[in-house]
């Protein structure tokens, strides 16, 4: 270990040119030990003497060419780990260039960019070293020491690192910086919500990997407060369990979205919006970033107030596949990047719209479709028409359709082109005359069929009529688009 630290962050700059030698000052400012020399022979001497990790060298450095220099140093066991950044002309070739380690920098170069490249080189190196010396300092089982105790020990010792936990199939991590929990993760949930859930784990294995974790800080409160709050919520949850809705309960909104009372608290609003797509309490808990206890309490209030009601088992939907496996294969073949048939891939279904209302109406028809996974950004967005993903339809094990909303106004027309990649199809929402130009564009220039969709039933002779819980219509619509990939008309049973 001592050798690693003494190697430190030493950089050798070898060049007869001003531009490269001038890098010395900013590098020193960034905390690197910098050694400069103006010829290859000197560079060789310096690198053999000092343990340095990186040499930035001009290809045509005098006395000893960079290529030769690198060759000599790589052959020496003391310096074989060195990386080289070669600075040279366009089209220069360097014998023995190692793509994974060395870099070629074109002259003239931007100082800041070179600095960034050097910083990222050392960053990467540090991480590799961390991984390689990752010795499990503490391991054990939660039966013997509870998570709370464990965290308090780490807190007292002001530890940096990641606490990994496993319980059966479940995996979780708690990230610590200077003894404070900065983030936690269980499955797809992160932040305080995840941390509070973890506090209820009473058995399982854990191990601690020291080192400063690279993670976004999502928890800001001090450890003591965090633990107290978590334990309080756990206790109360246990006490009130009987009166709170259970995870299997199915709920439904009694008032439509646009008739919701004004001035709701943000959390309440969020839950109500999510409820448009998720009916089971368990799903709501998974998808809402608020702590579980808070959600359950809110749901109870909403139930009491009558905004939400409990529904009995929904009628089992006949499980009609949205796309048959032949269709999925045809689509993947069409977009195939080599032999990626087994990898998960996505294709885009563009939704052309003139206003956000049309997009919302379309999204509502997908409620209750188990394959539909809405995007939280979209759920929480305002009433102005934006662009981007509103969600995904997981049509097969390895294929998902991205539902991608694109404004149809001509002022935004330059945006139509860049999203033409991997197009499953285009759907025009509604019958606004403003859609016409965009439809012509996609049919004419992009050669993609555009299907009109009607979600309100106002113009029944115009394209596909989609309604909530009408799985057949959705299947018909997708089969129609997929026929372009299979080269055959949609299967008879869906028409």
């Amino acid at each position, binding site marked *: 270990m001592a050798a690693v630290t003494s190697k430190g962050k030493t950089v050798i700059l070898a060049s007869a040119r001003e531009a490269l030698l001038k890098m010395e000052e900013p590098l020193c400012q960034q905390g690197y030990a910098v050694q400069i020399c103006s010829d290859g022979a000197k560079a060789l001497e310096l690198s053999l003497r000092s343990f340095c990790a990186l040499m930035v060298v001009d290809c045509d450095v005098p006395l000893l060419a960079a290529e030769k220099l690198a060759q000599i140093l790589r052959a020496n066991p003391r310096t074989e780990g060195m990386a080289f950044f070669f600075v040279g002309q366009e089209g220069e070739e360097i014998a023995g260039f190692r793509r994974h380690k060395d870099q070629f920098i074109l002259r003239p*170069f931007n100082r800041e*960019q070179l600095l960034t490249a050097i910083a990222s080189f050392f960053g990467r190196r540090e991480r590799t070293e961390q991984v390689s010396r990752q010795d499990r300092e503490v391991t054990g089982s939660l039966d013997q020491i509870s998570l709370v105790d464990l965290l308090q020990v780490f807190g007292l010792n002001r530890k940096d690192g990641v606490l990994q936990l496993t319980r059966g199939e479940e995996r979780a991590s708690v990230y610590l910086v200077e003894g404070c929990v900065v983030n936690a993760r269980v499955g797809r949930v992160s932040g305080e919500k995840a941390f509070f859930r973890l506090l209820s784990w009473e058995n399982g294995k854990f191990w601690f990997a020291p080192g400063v974790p690279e993670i976004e800080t999502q928890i800001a409160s001090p450890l003591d407060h965090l633990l107290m709050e978590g334990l309080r919520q756990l206790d109360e949850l246990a006490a009130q369990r009987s009166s709170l809705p259970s995870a299997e309960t199915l709920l439904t909104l009694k008032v439509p979205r646009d008739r919701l009372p004004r001035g709701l608290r943000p959390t309440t609003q969020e839950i109500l919006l999510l409820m448009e797509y998720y009916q089971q309490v368990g799903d709501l808990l998974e998808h809402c970033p608020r702590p579980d206890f808070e959600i359950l309490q809110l749901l109870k209030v909403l139930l009491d107030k009558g905004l939400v009601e409990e529904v009995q088992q929904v009628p089992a939907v006949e499980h009609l596949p949205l796309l048959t496996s032949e269709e999925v294969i045809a689509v993947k073949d069409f977009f195939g*990047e080599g032999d990626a048939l087994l990898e998960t891939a996505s294709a885009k279904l563009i939704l052309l719209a003139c206003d956000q209302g049309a997009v919302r109406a379309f999204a509502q028809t997908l409620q209750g479709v188990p394959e539909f996974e809405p995007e939280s950004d979209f759920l929480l967005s305002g009433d102005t028409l934006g662009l981007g993903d509103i969600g995904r339809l997981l049509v097969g094990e390895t294929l998902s359709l991205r539902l991608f909303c694109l404004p149809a106004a001509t002022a*935004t027309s330059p945006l139509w082109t860049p999203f033409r*990649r991997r197009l499953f199809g285009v759907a025009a929402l509604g019958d606004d005359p403003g859609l016409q130009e965009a439809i012509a564009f996609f049919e004419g220039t992009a050669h993609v069929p555009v299907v009109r969709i009607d979600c309100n039933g106002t113009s029944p002779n115009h394209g596909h009529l989609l309604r909530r819980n009408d799985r057949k219509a959705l299947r018909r619509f997708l089969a129609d688009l997929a026929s372009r990939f299979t080269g055959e008309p949609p299967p008879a049973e869906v028409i």
Partner: protein
Amino acid sequence: MAKGRILAIDNEEFFRSLYRDLLRGEGYYVRTATSGSEALECLRGEEFDLVVTDMHLPGLDGLAVTEAVRRVNPDQEIMIVTGQQDVSLAVEAMKQGVSEYLLKPINPDELLLVINKVLFRQSLGREHRRLLDENLEFVATLAYYRRCLIFLQIHDLDRLGDVVLDNLMDLLRAEGAALWVIGFGGHNYRLRCRRGLAQVAAGEESLQPDSGERQMILNGKGVLTAGGRTIFLPLLAGLEPLGVIRIEAPVGREHFNRRDLKVADLVAEFATSALYNLLLYRKLEQDSLRVPRGEAYTMAFFRDHVVKELHKGRRYGRRLSLVLLVIENYAELGNRFLDRDLEAAMVSLVETVNTALRDADILAMSGPDEYLIMLPETDYWGSLVTQKRIRKALRGKSTLCDLKKSHSIEVLMRSAAFPADGGTLEELLHVAERRLDRLRGSLFQRSRLGAMSFWGIVDRLLGTPAQYHLEADGSLGVAELLTGHEEDLRSRYIRMPEERLDEVMRTFCREVAESPRIRGVIYRGCVDFDVVRKCLRKTEGLESSATSIYLLGGRRRVTWDSQRIVPIYIEDENFRKTVFLLYLNEDFAYGLFARKRGSELVGFHTSDFYFIENLISRLQEQYQLQAQI
């Protein structure tokens, strides 16, 4: 001619005249000396086959003379004549290396017999030495020939050059050598190979021999130049000069010598025939596969080759790109210049383009103003990189001058890739032509932005705030001066909420993460790096993608632990005034420039591929960014 040269030494006139008369009568050349010192004087001036000396001489005696002569010429045959019969003296003389020993009085027949014998023996020895020397030289020459034989087996010009130079350096014990081969038209010689420590000065890539040098070349023999420190070795086949070699830096001695020249000439002879055959072969190939003048291939060859490559591509899943290169103002140039000048310009243009291509790329001429380049194993992105390289190589070189002013040759290029754009040569050509048409209509061509800087172009597009009218209903009015930049569905002025920019950027990042293999580059000008980073939210998918995202501007230098999202701090007021987003990938491009008006952004956006491509390269040049494309 005399039968032999004899020097006779005797202090008695009688014997001297006896020698003279007797030996001259037999056809020998005879000189006489009265004393040892006189004899030595004679030997200094002339060479003799035999020295005949009396044993008893005043001053130096016979033995002393023998010793003195031996000192000057150890091989000298010496015969001693003496009046006394003294065995010990005779033994002493024989020890000194005297060939024969004769007693006075002299019997003429005996004397002649002995002299004949000595001279015969001497000539035998000489003959033997000569044969030995000849044999040695013969063996050495044979070794040189052997080494040079390999030249004839090489069919690649560069390799031949290297081998010739290496052999020369080895045989002459020199540390450096360079070869220039005659160029098109035979006016100049172009540097082809350079080995060892050869020093080629900046202007020497192309040698333009003056009359003296031309004479040296036509002589066809190696010449010592620079006071013997270099050898100038012409390669002359008959009367046709093929090239010039310069050998430098003799090892272990200051100068090259005559022997070196001889060896060099010998090697040159071989090298010349090998080079001659090779050039002939190349010419033959050129005549059948390439257009008569210049380095471009004929279409027949090209078509055939591309079809084969396409088969290969289909079978093994390989990629291939085709670049269409058009001289846009060929007709105009044709009106202005002589055909000969125009043709020469085209030839040199093709040569320049070839310097930017890789060895496996093939350039063919499909019309006087149209060329096709096939890039094997290259996708569309790679072909864009090639085009950029060609543009760079042509910069400053694509002009034609008449007496009054110079005219630039306008070169336009566009490419199509297999299998994305089509499966046959015709389809690919069609796609490339369509793209070329679009390029002609590109904002960059239409508005003649060619010579402007990045910010110059941006300022011109965005105009001044007074040129926009923000209507209350959210629509945007733009002054007449600016609407010229607009193009139906491709380039528009836009007004949007400020957050929309982040939303667009986020969506692009999402696209990148969903198709990670597509190569591309995103440039975003920003005021604060951290704010932009935050708005990107999920960035995990980006790290494993083939797209680089650069954030430019910022308030200060920041370091992030990310390979793909790279902040580059640039202190420039412009980044604070104008935000921009440029996205270029293998298929599409998008660019947006806007200025803040209240909580809205007002600006211009476009999906004009050629425009974005050029703007990005302007940006890279301006801030010396490493070119990703």
